[in-house]
């Protein structure tokens, strides 16, 4: 863990502010695969504040392995060619606080470990980024995952997507409150 002995002090974060829509969204940002791709799913949800109100000026980014568990190291996320899987996507919330991605299910990067989407959340009013994970509902390896096992049932539920009737994955993000999402630090 070289990070613990880092020589230089980390530059602090600041809020993304209200004008994230000016600089960050781009065409195809939330489409890790084109609509209609075999195995494509919709991953979506709403970002909520402490009063349960949706946040329309939040931004969600996901980073994931390919279905076979490999980690893509291909450029082209900002100018997608429809063939190259880059594993990364960005979605600004709409006026109802909803974000959505068109993607494929991530595979496990190691045998016996559960796959998940790595997530980072930004918003106006949120002074620094928040990391979390979206685990897949009912995945058998979830029961042995050190993070999930360290949480009580209610906390654990905040990190696992739910599957709706048409097979879409839903993952709501609560910045605060009774259903507050478990947010992570890695160092």
């Amino acid at each position, binding site marked *: 863990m070289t990070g613990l002995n880092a020589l230089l002090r980390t530059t602090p974060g*600041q*809020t993304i502010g209200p*004008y994230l829509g000016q600089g960050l969204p781009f*065409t195809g940002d939330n489409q890790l695969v084109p609509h209609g791709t075999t195995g494509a799913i919709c991953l979506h949800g709403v970002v909520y504040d402490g009063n349960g109100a949706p946040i329309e000026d939040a931004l969600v980014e996901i980073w994931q*392995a390919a279905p076979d568990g490999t980690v893509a190291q291909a450029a082209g996320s900002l100018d997608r060619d429809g063939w190259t899987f880059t594993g990364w996507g960005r979605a600004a919330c709409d006026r109802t606080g909803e974000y959505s991605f068109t993607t494929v299910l991530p595979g496990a990067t190691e045998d016996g470990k559960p796959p998940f989407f790595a997530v980072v959340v930004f918003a106006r009013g949120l002074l620094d*980024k928040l990391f979390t994970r979206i685990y897949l509902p009912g995945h058998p390896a979830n029961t042995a995952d050190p993070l999930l096992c360290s949480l009580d049932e209610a906390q654990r539920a905040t990190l696992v997507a739910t599957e709706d009737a048409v097979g879409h994955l839903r993952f709501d993000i609560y910045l605060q409150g009774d259903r507050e999402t478990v947010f992570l630090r890695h160092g």
Partner: protein
Amino acid sequence: MTVTPVPVLSGWEAETLTQADIVAEIAALASHDAVEGAPQTRTNYPPYRSSILRHPTKELRYADPETIELWSPCFSERDVHPLEADLTLGAHHGWNSQVTGQPIGERITVSGRVLDGDGRPVVGQLVEVWQANAAGRYVHKNEQHDAPIDPNFAGIGRCITGSDGSYWFQTIKPGPYPWGNHRNAWRPAHIHFSFFGREFTQRLITQMYFPGDPLFALDPIYHSISDLQDRNALVAAYDHELSVPEHSLGFRWDVVLSGPNRTWMEEA
């Protein structure tokens, strides 16, 4: 968990809350006791009223980074045209302009290096910027400040870091702008920056400020950072070496991302 009542900002409060009130709140939260053990950037920082309902109340939970978190998405020149680093050209993606003119304002260069915590350059990674124009106006549908729009300035740019971790933008100096946190609230001039590191855990969005801004003392967003040294790390330095004769003034700003967590090997 202790649940504290959450003050909710009403329109009435926004009208009556003064700058002096906010400065007093900032001072109260700057005491040693308040800062002790606080994170670098305090997400729970009530002087910034919008943070009240938008910060987690539970401590961040430590998780060993897994494989996917130890790698970062990959960007390259394929993603970003070199001209996107020059915001004075109006050549940014998606900016449908019939630009022929120069944006109004003080033309500046902002350049620096992106490093990890061990001082190694972050090579070939994406840097994105967005900012207000010289009059303090953003190009955004929610912008309500009635300062003039500059038809020759979109205020968005991108670049890919070089082999030494360096980035470079040419732009115009953004103006301060008013906001609704309290009566007569003004943000110090700043440029929004977004960085990717070598690992997903290094992701950073922050704001770069300009040296000597008189609004620093009044700004709750700037003061959400507990430590003066950390606040200073967000302030660029005037750098005469980056100034171009008869053309522009230069500012240098280096950035350090967290980590690394992953064992680092020489890049091929």
